[in-house]
């Protein structure tokens, strides 16, 4: 559906605020650790798509989730991944792009056995 506007060419006059070329070569990637809602929402990062998936885990996910007591116990090869709505076993040595990530992709992950503080998903 289009916007009901006073001008007939509304769609031609607008600018997409978050077009990929506006991020200085990065893509926005969202990451979310399931069952750990102490982190209130998914986290957003501007990242180069050429980055290896393994670096996303070691350089981004690990430090930014470190404040949770479960973080130290994550076993990375047991983690269940979902990229943009599809379960996937990502190749850690391949790039984000080769793993199917693009601008504004959402990466959710589950850590079996780690279900948040006292199992409360917190």
């Amino acid at each position, binding site marked *: *559906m*289009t*916007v*009901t*506007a*006073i001008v007939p060419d*509304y*769609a031609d006059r*607008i*600018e*997409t*605020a*978050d*077009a*990929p070329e*506006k*991020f*200085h070569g*990065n893509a*926005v990637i*969202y990451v*979310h650790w*399931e*069952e750990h*809602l*102490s*982190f*209130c*929402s*998914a*986290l*957003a*990062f*501007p990242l180069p798509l050429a980055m290896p998936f393994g670096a996303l885990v070691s350089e981004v996910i690990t430090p*930014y989730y470190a*404040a949770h*007591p479960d973080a130290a116990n994550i076993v990375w090869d047991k983690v269940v991944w979902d990229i*943009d*709505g599809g379960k996937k076993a990502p190749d850690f040595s391949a790039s984000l792009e080769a793993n199917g990530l*693009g*601008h*504004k*992709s*959402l990466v*959710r992950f589950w850590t079996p056995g780690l279900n*948040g*503080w*006292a199992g*409360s*998903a*917190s």
Partner: protein
Amino acid sequence: MSGAKKLGLKQRYAHMTRGLDWETTYQPMDKVFPYDRFEGIKIKDWSAWEDPFRLTMDTYWKFQAEKERKLYAVLDSFAQNNGQTGVSDGRYINVLKLFLTGISPEEYQAHRGFAFAGRHLRGVGPRVAAQMQSLDELRHVQTQIHTISHYNKYFDGLSEFRHMHDRVWYLSVPKSFFDDARTAGPFEFMIAIGFAFEYLLTNLLFVPFMSGAAYNGDMSTVTFGFSAQSDESRHMTLGIEVIKFLLEQHPDNLPIVQKWVDKWFWRGHRVLGLVAMMMDYMLPKKVMSWKEAWEIYFTEAGGSLFTDLARYGLKVPKYADVATAEAEHISHQNWAIFYQYTHAAGFHTWMPDAEHLDWLSAKYPDTFDKYYRPRWELWAKLEKEGKRFYNNALPQLCQCCQIPMGYTEPGDPTTIAFRSSTYKDQKYHFCSDGCKDIFDNEPDKFVQAWLPVHQIFQGNCGGATVPDVLAWYRMNVGADNMDYVGSPDEALWNEWHAEKLRKAV
């Protein structure tokens, strides 16, 4: 003129307005009123508009002037008696910070929006009513600034409210709400703000703030609330009149109006999440829980309203049931957002104490102990260990409401609700079906959304680091932000109270 009878108010009003809606001849009417056709609303007879107030301009000024005199007398005596030292607790001032930064600027936006509607609706009845509301809203923002400016002499976080409103991440939530309404046509604006906000949801905004002020000893805020009350009842009447008028004028208006009601109910519900958090977490002396307020002011009052509107074919807003179910959760989820982003908040946060947690358990017996108490317990434990919990990354935001995507699946408070749409090869993310529907109906509007997190990444917010961005917000780091405990506000408050105790001995 001894034989001439003095005119009654009603007749004076008729004389005052009826001549105003002449047919223009130098220019065609459609050119003079270019905005009131494109939305597809059909009006057969503008004169069928019933203005329930019939307030002439001279009576309007007289009423308002009287209210101003009373308000400023109270404000003067509040200042002379150092009323700021008599509120329930120093934490209470953070409610005023939220109000002044998040709500007062929207009074101004309402003023602008009603001025626009007052110019561009071609019927004289709604035009006069919208113009008066426009003046009311200007008065509201002014009296709020004046009232709260007294607190600004003592407390942090208030002085840059105007600057912050256009920049700070969470203030984009109410700002984008009004920007959306003000960039719509005049009829959508009237339904969005006049009906959905001022009629359907207004009690969930003003009653909590004003009774919160009364419970917490803030007589100055109570007084501006009273001073706005008679305006608000006029606004509510205008809101209900608008919707009835549109629905009575033409059956084709119904689907358009229904879509607006659905949209603006959901957007309003999202903005009110800030009030929910204020009621359940920020008022030192609680009035009632958000859930209780929702039951009284939405479920019961809204229920009878929509029973009444059913004769026009209008239905209860879509996802009203989802919003009602969320009343169990949103205050906890929102305060958790601010607790972990306290370093980027323009007001203070704090950990609820034991008594407060018990109150929450009592008010939310089905959910609090199971889902939210453990979160506070973990964070309290970390605080005790000297590892106060901060979220050091930026949150994913909803493309529509712009709130961090922290809301959970209906029926499952352990899982975040993720919704998305693809439009012109780009992905967009939403916190809920309600927000997704709004985007899907008007994607070209919402792809333009100024999402604070993405703007930071694009380099438009002062720099790449948190201190850069906070400087750009004009946030006084170490004073405006962070926890109440350890803040200059707390130090001042404790000093006042030590002095009171000394004097009492």
